[in-house]
């Protein structure tokens, strides 16, 4: 049985940014019951969402947790001594998170503790602080720690999303490249253009984005430093300049260029601008992305007649075809540990997100929506964001990487597309 949460959070950030509405549409059957007790507060706290409710929303959006509403709690402890396991067991809870917030000058300090109800044990306790203005950062940090303590996998709540919004007023399109928290909040516009912006890709240190912009009337690849807004045009050849993907050391990009006749994949050294051609075929070769080893890469090619996913184990190796399940499989995105590759998969007339287990070669269709594009895997491999159609508009949807749970991030107007999930930066 799936459960549906009736919470909807409207977000307004900078006035220029599109508002995203988080709606959790489905949770997993196996969701773990957890009680996030509202944190006690001493001293003046900033207005806006409470830290503990942000933590609660973070855990909920993974689909792996089912938080207990505060009004069902029998007590509201703020520290370990006040936690009575019997009460929480009676409420069917597996874990309890309690905490205290203290205002210290222009900072807010959080002391928080996590308890395993069955084993009656404190499994984590820590102190963290942030400036008064960035308590959302503090909340996401706590969520990361709690998630890791329970699942053993690092949380990805402190990461960012990059995406492109498109609004049309009359015939005039307006593209905006935006960066937000993973819950869609604190969205900021980074680039605005009346020509297409495509394919945002995060640098490994999450400080830069590479993307394709048609702002000069033709496609070129840019690198955009987020802290300064400085931009460099790194590929502006005749024909296609598309699909940038960063190497692990951040020094080169895989790109698709057609300067030599048709779409081929090249390695572009960012510093020197030198190019090395990595594919050579009359077919379309595009959508490259490094594999988890950093030696090989995945890409889309229609050399068999329609688009399929291929892998080259090294820059020189012969390409090996990965997908066979249908006549259209494109835009591969591997996870970080080499287990799965995710991609767009056509079945009958619909386009879904599917993944192939690289060991067993088993293919699983993950989505039930039917115009799905642009999968991007969370850096911890547990969630996947993609774009789909809802009521004629493009929206972002997040699902558990095994297809279990889902929430969507529709814009208040226009399209949201091409999500890219940032790496975890420690």
């Amino acid at each position, binding site marked *: 049985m799936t459960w549906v949460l009736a919470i909807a959070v409207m977000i307004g950030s900078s006035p220029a940014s599109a508002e995203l509405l988080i709606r959790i549409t489905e949770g997993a059957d196996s969701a773990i019951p957890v009680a996030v007790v509202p944190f006690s507060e001493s001293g003046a706290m900033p207005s806006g969402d409470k830290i503990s409710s942000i933590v609660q929303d973070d855990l909920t959006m993974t689909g792996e947790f089912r938080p207990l509403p505060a009004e069902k709690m029998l007590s509201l402890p703020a520290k370990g001594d006040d936690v009575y396991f019997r009460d929480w067991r009676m409420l069917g809870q597996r874990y309890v998170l309690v905490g205290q917030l203290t205002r210290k000058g222009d900072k807010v300090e959080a002391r928080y503790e996590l308890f395993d109800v069955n084993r009656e044990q404190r499994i984590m306790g820590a102190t963290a602080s942030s400036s008064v203005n960035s308590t959302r950062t503090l909340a996401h940090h706590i969520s990361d720690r709690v998630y890791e303590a329970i699942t053993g996998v690092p949380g990805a709540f402190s990461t960012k999303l990059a995406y492109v919004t498109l609004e049309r007023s009359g015939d005039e399109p307006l593209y905006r490249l935006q960066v937000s928290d993973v819950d869609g909040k604190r969205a900021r516009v980074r680039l605005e253009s009346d020509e297409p912006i495509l394919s945002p890709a995060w640098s490994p240190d999450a400080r830069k984005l590479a993307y394709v912009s048609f702002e000069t009337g033709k496609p070129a690849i840019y690198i955009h430093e987020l802290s300064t807004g400085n931009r460099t045009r790194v590929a502006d050849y005749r024909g*296609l300049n598309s699909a940038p993907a960063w190497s692990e050391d951040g020094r080169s990009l895989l790109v698709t260029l057609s300067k030599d006749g048709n779409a081929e994949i090249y390695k572009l050294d960012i510093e020197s601008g030198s190019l090395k051609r990595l594919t050579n075929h009359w077919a379309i070769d*595009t959508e490259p992305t490094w594999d988890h080893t950093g030696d090989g890469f995945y890409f889309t090619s229609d050399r068999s007649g329609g688009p399929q996913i291929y892998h080259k184990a090294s820059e020189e190796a012969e390409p090996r075809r990965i997908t066979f399940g249908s006549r259209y499989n494109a835009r591969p995105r591997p996870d970080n540990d080499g287990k799965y590759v995710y991609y767009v998969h056509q079945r009958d007339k619909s386009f879904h997100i599917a993944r192939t287990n690289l060991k067993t070669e088993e293919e699983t269709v993950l989505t039930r929506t039917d*115009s799905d*594009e642009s999968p991007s895997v969370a850096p911890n491999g547990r969630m996947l964001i993609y774009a789909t159609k809802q009521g004629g508009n493009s929206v972002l949807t997040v699902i558990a990487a095994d297809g279990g749970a889902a929430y969507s991030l529709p814009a208040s107007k226009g399209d949201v597309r091409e999500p890219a999930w940032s790496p975890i930066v420690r």
Partner: protein
Amino acid sequence: MKMTAQHKALALIFSLGLIAGCSSTGDPVEDEAYGSVDQEGGSTVYGGDDEGGVSSSEMTEEQRRRAEERAERAETEAMREITTFYFDFDTAEIKSEAREVLVAHARYLQANPGQNVRIEGHADERGTKEYNLALGERRANAIERFLIVNGASRGQMETISYGEEKPAVMGSDESAWAQNRRVELVFQ
């Protein structure tokens, strides 16, 4: 003679319009081509057919040649009204009904070396954006090659692909997709 040639041109345009009209509904571009035929030639078509042979006998050789040139020019110009060419899903194959029109464009470019054209390739919204960029380019390249083979020179042409970013028609059904899988010639 003049009438006959023009009639032929108009009939061709007419049938092209109809062929395109069958495969897609309500395409504004095709409506325009259709409309220009009506405007230019309605009465000529009806009046001319039988008289052609009679009047030509009174022409001198020079007059006849000029008339033929004029007719050819009219034919080419009428065909050149069509600047959008459609494709099937995930292909870049030029449809047979587009060939004669493209030949007319190529001849025009050959005769006017100062004329440049931008060849814009597009895809429908289905599938992935980056693959569609490459597919739109493949379509634009196919048209460019066809124009070169038929007399245009490479220096007159530039190609660009917008992939699925600039649909001609909004919507997510077969009719919209069919009108969005296209190459547009933009004369500059």
